[in-house]
């Protein structure tokens, strides 16, 4: 079955050009021009990756992102044309896995989509982990806190697995960007920060005073094993 990508973009020329570029990679593209159509299309038939432009007529990209995130853990890429950085953080907070800034290279776009597809196909680890009340059953993609199952997106899960396989060791933001997102050194470290924050709200009892995923000042993050 071929990969399906849902795009939401109100500018017709961009929509067509981006579709052409994605189709060059052999992917199937479902084009929509506003948030309502995108949500309707996604509910009808979930896609493998969603590409959302932030500035949309009607309901905006953030809202579309939140609604699709509620429907499942499909990888979402936000696209922004604005230079201010609030959009990026807001998009990530709304549940996006990654973002692209216009104008982007079609090669860059393809690389991002491929990285997301890879993440949703392979878990990367087969062993299970258990840290105090935090249980990770890797081959089933399950995480339990205090025996209760919590739902993580693919990116959050991958992030947790990377920290778990290196438990007790500090991973720098750059390390995590490379291992989880496939970025080089110059990837945006806010991706890591926002995802760590989201991960904490799910696995930590008190996200403000994390017990498992801790920040190591000046170095990065680590999964704590000594309690």
């Amino acid at each position, binding site marked *: 079955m071929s990969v399906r990508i849902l795009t939401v973009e109100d*500018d017709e*020329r*961009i929509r*067509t*050009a*981006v579709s*052409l*570029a994605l189709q*060059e990679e052999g992917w199937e593209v479902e084009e929509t021009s506003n948030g309502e159509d995108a949500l309707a299309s996604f509910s009808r038939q979930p896609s493998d990756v969603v590409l959302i432009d932030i*500035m949309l007529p009607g309901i905006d990209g953030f809202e579309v992102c939140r609604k699709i995130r509620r429907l499942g853990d499909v990888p979402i890429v936000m696209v922004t*044309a*604005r*230079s*201010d*950085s609030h959009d990026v953080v807001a998009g990530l907070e709304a549940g996006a896995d990654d973002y692209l800034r*216009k*104008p*982007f*290279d*079609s*090669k860059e*776009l393809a690389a991002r989509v491929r990285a997301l597809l890879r993440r949703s196909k392979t878990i990367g680890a087969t062993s299970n982990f258990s840290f105090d009340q935090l249980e990770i059953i890797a081959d089933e993609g399950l995480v339990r806190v205090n025996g209760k199952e919590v739902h993580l997106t693919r990116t959050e899960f991958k992030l947790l697995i990377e920290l778990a396989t290196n438990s007790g060791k500090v991973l*720098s*933001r*750059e390390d995590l960007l490379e291992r989880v997102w496939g970025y*080089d*050194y*110059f990837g*945006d*470290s*806010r991706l890591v920060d926002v995802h760590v924050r989201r991960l904490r709200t799910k696995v930590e009892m008190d996200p403000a005073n994390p017990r498992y995923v801790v920040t190591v*000042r*000046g*170095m990065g993050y680590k999964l704590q094993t000594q309690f």
Partner: protein
Amino acid sequence: MSNEKYDQAQNLSYKLKLGLRTRISLFFAVGGLLVSIGLSGATLVLTRQQLIDSRENAASAFALTNATRLSNQLTPDSSVEDLPSIVDSMTKIEGSQRLIRIGNDWLPSQELDREDIPENILNRVTELKAGQLRVEINGKTRLVLGIPLQLFDAAYFAIVDLTDLEETLDDLRIILFGAGAGVTSLAALLGWWISRRTLRPLRNVREAAEAIAGGRLDTRLIRQSDPDLDRLSESFNEMARALEERIHRDARFASEVSHELRSPLTTLKASVGVLESRKNELSKRSQTALDLLSRDLERFNRLVSELLEISGYDAGAASLELEEVNIAQFIQATTRNDTSITYMLPANADSLVMNVDKRRLARALSNLLDNAHRYGNGPTLIEVSTNENSIQIAVEDAGPGISIEERKIIFDRFSRGSSSGQRGDDGGTGLGLSLVQEDARLHGGKVWVENPKGTESGTGSRFVIELPTIGEEL
């Protein structure tokens, strides 16, 4: 008048002029001083006159009494030898002395004799007229009274010491001077206080202006009860409103321009990407055209993003996203491990962390490296050095170097070195170095160009970015 000159002139007049409050206080102090000088002067003159008059009256009354008594006790046969016994019976007052002449003989006092009596008193007495005069004798102010004794060829002279009077007046002068100084200081204080009260609304204006300049654009002055001051705060608020609106409009405009420019570029890049991936389906001529298209699209793209970046600085919308960056990793990643460059890093570079905006600093360093590639035959050395409160990153090349005149303008927008060759060939946008400067400034640092260490001008250049090590409490 150029801006710079105008500023200088402004600064100069600031230095020469005293502050309003100082001037008001000074005005009050001078007023107080003049008033107290006037009053003290009048007091002194009047008191002195009164004191002297009463003393002279008393002295002449006493002299007249003694002269009459002397006249009564003298006989036509009396001589100088008879005088001491007569004198003993006369009234004495402190500080007064007497001289008596009979015929050509004189009875001197203990201290004084006839030489000390002023000439015109002697003359008046010779003319059988009484006289009095204030003179200085032996360093003391004295009143000399002369009374002729008409029945005999004799005269009585009284000399009264006025020193105690002068002492009293000196005391009065000191008191008045002290009072004058007090009044002057009080006036100055009053002036200071009044000006402070009067200028308080102006201080509010200053604070509001500073707040606005500091970025709190919604700062407004509260309404004043005084109608004059209320007009001021109303105008000020009007100005602040206009400024805020203008800045927001500019920021909105920049954001809209950004969107409008990025959209067609997105279409262009995606479409060119499709063409690139099907390049071998195209004819040779079309391939050449596609190459031109994608190269200039890339350049245009860079120009747009740098222009948007610059306009972000101008609109004050640029902000730092500080994060902890490992210096050794950063240099390695930015240079992509270029082995043609010599690296001089601090010994502890592997564990050295700086708190910077990684994206901006990476762009600044890349721009310097690009610059070295374009105009300086490639970078030869990267040196990182740190001290207590700053970090310096230097990039050297072995190119033709940059003249002193050009060093001043090289960071200006769209200024390219004269040696940089023909426009269009180099692929640069002309904004690279000004962006480096803006990024350094945003970090609170600076960038400059100098001769490579230990060389003369004309043999390469050394660009240095210096950043303060802010918030480094690691």
